[in-house]
């Protein structure tokens, strides 16, 4: 790098550090508050796991429900999304573009509107309305575009046509090609999409707040409850539990999105 590190460099570095502080300092404060005896008095009141214990006793069901819904959501988006992405990659015509456009709509329009639409259409089916699958439907609508786009990006980057023609000339039928050529080739996209789907589902609130019932609370719904009605330390401890859940997902997502660019640059190295 031939550039000299002049005053501009340090100004920009200072600005970037300030932005970092804006994002990270509240996280640290909240983690500290979650393990402090009395946050109002300060850290001198001593550390405790009492609040975390209280959260676990009162809200552990929301944690397991969120994990369950996220995994079910992943299964649904895999089954619905991968075939759809393959079709969209194969047929790049106006109809395919229109379908893609439509499928992204649940991300584009506010979750509140989607949730209200689901309620006015299916709220009358009480068995469905009160079950966790009602939330699952909303999450699948919201996360499906991320799976489709992630797989579609990989399928568009490789020479699908040549690979498939090669397999077809050797006598491979449609389904053999799909399972032995297409699927193994888009595993990077599937993995990235899967991490995104699970992360988004675990954190979804906009829709879930309207879709949930008192017996089907998810983690973010429980968080909203705790923020509104319990003391700051309990809300912080609950947030801490949420961080512990999503940090591994985020690290995996970041670690994974980095080498993918190199894979794109020279696909033959894969």
């Amino acid at each position, binding site marked *: *790098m031939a*550039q000299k590190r002049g005053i*501009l460099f340090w100004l*920009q*570095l200072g*600005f*970037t550090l300030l*932005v*970092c502080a804006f*994002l*990270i*300092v*509240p*996280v640290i*404060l909240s983690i500290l508050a979650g393990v402090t005896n009395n946050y109002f008095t300060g850290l001198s009141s001593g550390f405790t796991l009492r609040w975390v214990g209280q959260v676990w006793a009162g809200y552990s069901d929301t944690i397991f429900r969120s994990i369950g819904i996220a995994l079910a959501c992943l299964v649904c988006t895999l089954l*619905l*999304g991968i*075939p*759809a992405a393959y*079709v969209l990659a*194969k*047929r790049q015509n106006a109809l395919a573009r229109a*379908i893609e456009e*439509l*499928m992204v*709509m649940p991300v584009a*329009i*506010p979750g*509140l*509107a*989607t949730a*209200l*639409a*689901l309620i*006015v*259409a299916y709220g009358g089916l009480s068995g469905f309305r009160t079950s966790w699958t009602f939330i699952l*439907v909303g999450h699948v*609508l919201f996360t*499906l575009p991320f799976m*489709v786009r992630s797989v579609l990006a990989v399928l568009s980057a490789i020479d699908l*046509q040549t690979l498939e*023609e090669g397999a077809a*000339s050797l006598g491979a039928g*449609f*389904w053999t090609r799909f399972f032995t050529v297409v699927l193994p080739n888009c595993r990077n996209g599937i993995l990235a999409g899967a991490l995104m789907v699970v*992360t988004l589902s*675990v*954190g*979804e*609130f*906009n829709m879930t*707040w*309207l879709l949930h019932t008192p017996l089907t609370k998810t983690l973010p719904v429980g*968080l*909203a409850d705790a*923020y509104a009605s319990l003391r700051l330390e309990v*809300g*912080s401890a609950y947030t801490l539990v949420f961080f512990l859940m*999503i940090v591994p997902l*985020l690290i995996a997502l970041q670690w994974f999105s980095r080498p993918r660019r190199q894979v794109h640059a020279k696909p033959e190295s894969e």
Partner: protein
Amino acid sequence: MPAKPGKMQRDTPMLVALMLPAGIFFAAFFLLPMVRLFLIGGSGTLGWAAYATIVTNANYFGSLLATLGVAAATTAATLVISGIAGVFLQRHKFPGNAALVAMLTFPLAFPGVVVGFMVIMLAGRQGLLGDISQMLGADKLVFAYSMAGLFTGYVYFSIPRVILTVMAATEKLDPKLEEAARSLGASPLGVVLDVIIPGLKPAFLSSGAICFATAVGAFGTAFTLATRINVLPMTIYTEFTLSANIAMAAALSFVLGAVTWAVLALARTAAGSSVAAAG
């Protein structure tokens, strides 16, 4: 690429079969409910005029303007902040660079409620800024439970997303263009205005549009901060739960959905055409 005639031309029935599960799910749980939402929006005491109340009713129109205003301010602030930090981090590699990027993208997966709580930790009644301002001898600075708090939350929420897009787009910019401009005598500001910003325009347009649409439709942050903040999603929620005015909630949320979708579609068209012009 259209399929070449031959063996693979017979794939069409199988492709339709593969599209069918997603298609049926989408039709049953999105298209049909949306049609129903639209019809219910016109079934209240006001009839189809309910769709016009967002402009004619001063209360709703006020919350629409507030929503669009806070979303526009969020978009502008986020683009400036993420533009500076994103270009800097992509262009200068130094020890600790990766750690800074990791920190700046960490809140990516925070739901709106958690973002609201982060604002409370910063600027709430027991917040850091209040303590600092008191220590400095000023009045206790508390702005979390107002429109300023909502704005802070939306910027917090949007920075990680926009920074990732800006960094990816900066990676594709050719540094030689900037060097050429510099060797031709352009000032640092000139390089930014004439080379970097035009080069990043598609990224700014697309990530700015997503930022705007998210801020228009977000609900969790406002919900955590205060139910008094008068933005459209909160108005819809109040109509639905407290007033049980389902028809009005349906009409308002349909309009809100149409507005956000239109913003995104417009920006995509603009970003697409500028990409074509650059190519």
